[in-house]
C-alpha cells in the first residue's frame, strides 16, 4: 500500500511538472502573436502587478494554459477575454474595456489635446496681437543672458 502511495505521489509530482507552461510556441506565427498579446493584456491575480505572461504564479501558468488551449480550439480574442472576465471581472484586463464608465479614460487624450490646443491658440492669438503692436525689441536685451 505504501509503495502504491509513493508511486502515486511521484506520478502526481511529475504530472504537475508537465502542467507547467513549457512555452512551446505555436507553429503559426499569427497565433503566437495573439498568444503573446493576450497573455500580456491579462493581469495575474496573485502577483497583481504582473501580466500572466510574466508572472511565476501557479494560477498564471494555469491561465496561460487556458489561453493556449482556447487559441488552439479556434476561439477569437473577444471570446478568450470574455472567458476571463466572466470569471474574474474586468479587473483581470490590463487594457480597460471601452464601456460607459471608462469613456473618460479612453477619450481623455483626445479631450485634453483638444482643450490644450484651444487654450494655446487663444493665448498665442492674444500674444501675437501684442507683438504686432510692439515695435520695440529692446526688452530682449534685459532679462537673462
Amino acid at each position, binding site marked *: 500500500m505504501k509503495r502504491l502511495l509513493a508511486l502515486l505521489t511521484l506520478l*502526481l509530482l511529475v504530472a504537475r511538472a508537465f502542467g507547467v507552461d513549457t512555452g512551446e510556441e505555436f507553429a503559426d506565427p499569427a497565433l503566437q502573436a495573439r498568444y503573446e498579446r493576450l497573455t500580456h493584456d491579462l493581469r495575474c491575480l496573485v502577483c497583481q502587478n504582473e501580466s500572466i505572461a510574466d508572472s511565476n504564479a501557479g494560477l498564471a501558468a494555469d491561465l496561460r494554459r487556458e489561453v493556449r488551449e482556447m487559441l488552439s480550439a479556434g476561439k477569437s480574442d473577444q471570446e478568450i477575454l470574455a472567458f476571463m472576465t466572466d*470569471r474574474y*471581472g474586468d479587473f483581470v484586463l490590463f487594457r480597460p474595456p471601452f464601456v460607459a464608465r471608462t469613456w473618460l479614460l479612453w477619450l481623455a487624450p483626445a479631450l485634453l489635446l483638444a482643450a490644450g490646443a484651444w487654450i494655446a491658440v487663444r493665448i498665442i492669438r492674444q500674444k501675437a496681437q501684442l507683438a504686432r503692436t510692439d515695435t520695440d525689441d529692446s526688452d530682449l536685451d534685459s532679462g537673462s543672458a
Partner: protein
Amino acid sequence: MWRYLLPLAGLAILVVFFFFGLQREPGTIPSPLIGKPAPSFSLPSVDNPAQSVSNADYRGRMYVLNVWGTWCIGCREEHAALLAIAHTSAVPFVGLNWKDERPLAIQWLKELGNPYTACAFDADGRVGIDWGVYGAPETFLVDANGVVIHKHIAPLTEEIWQRDFLPRIRAASKAAP
C-alpha cells in the same frame, strides 16, 4: 477669476477620493458570479477517485463550497472554525481541494478533521478557474436554484458566518417553497 480656483477644486476632489480609498482594499476582487448560476463541475472525490462529486448532487439544495489546499496557511487557520460551523450548519459543506496532492489532502482531513459532506479534488485547477478562484481559502454560498449568492475571501470565522452567511441562508430558505 474663478479659473484660478480650479486647481484647488481639483485637489479637493482628489483628497475626498483618497480619503475613502484608504478604507478600501484594492487587491480584493469581487466575484462576477454573484447572482449567476454556479459553474457546473464533476470531479473525482478526494478520498476515492472512483466516486464523483458534482454540483448536480446538490440540485434543489443550498450548499457551501469551500476552496482549500494543504499548502495554504489561511486554510490551516480557518480549519477549526470550519469544523465547528459545519457541524452545526444545516447547509452541507462541500470541499474543493484546489491544486493539491491527494495523499496530503487525505492525511490532512484524517488528522485535523473533515468538515465536508463531500470533497472534490481539482488537480489541474480548471474548476477553480471556472469559479473565479484566485487564492485560498475562498468560500461560496450557493442557493437551492444553483445560483451563487455570496463569496467570502480569506479565512472563515464564526463571526463572518453569523454576519454574512446566516442571514442569506435564512432569506433564501424563506423564499424557497
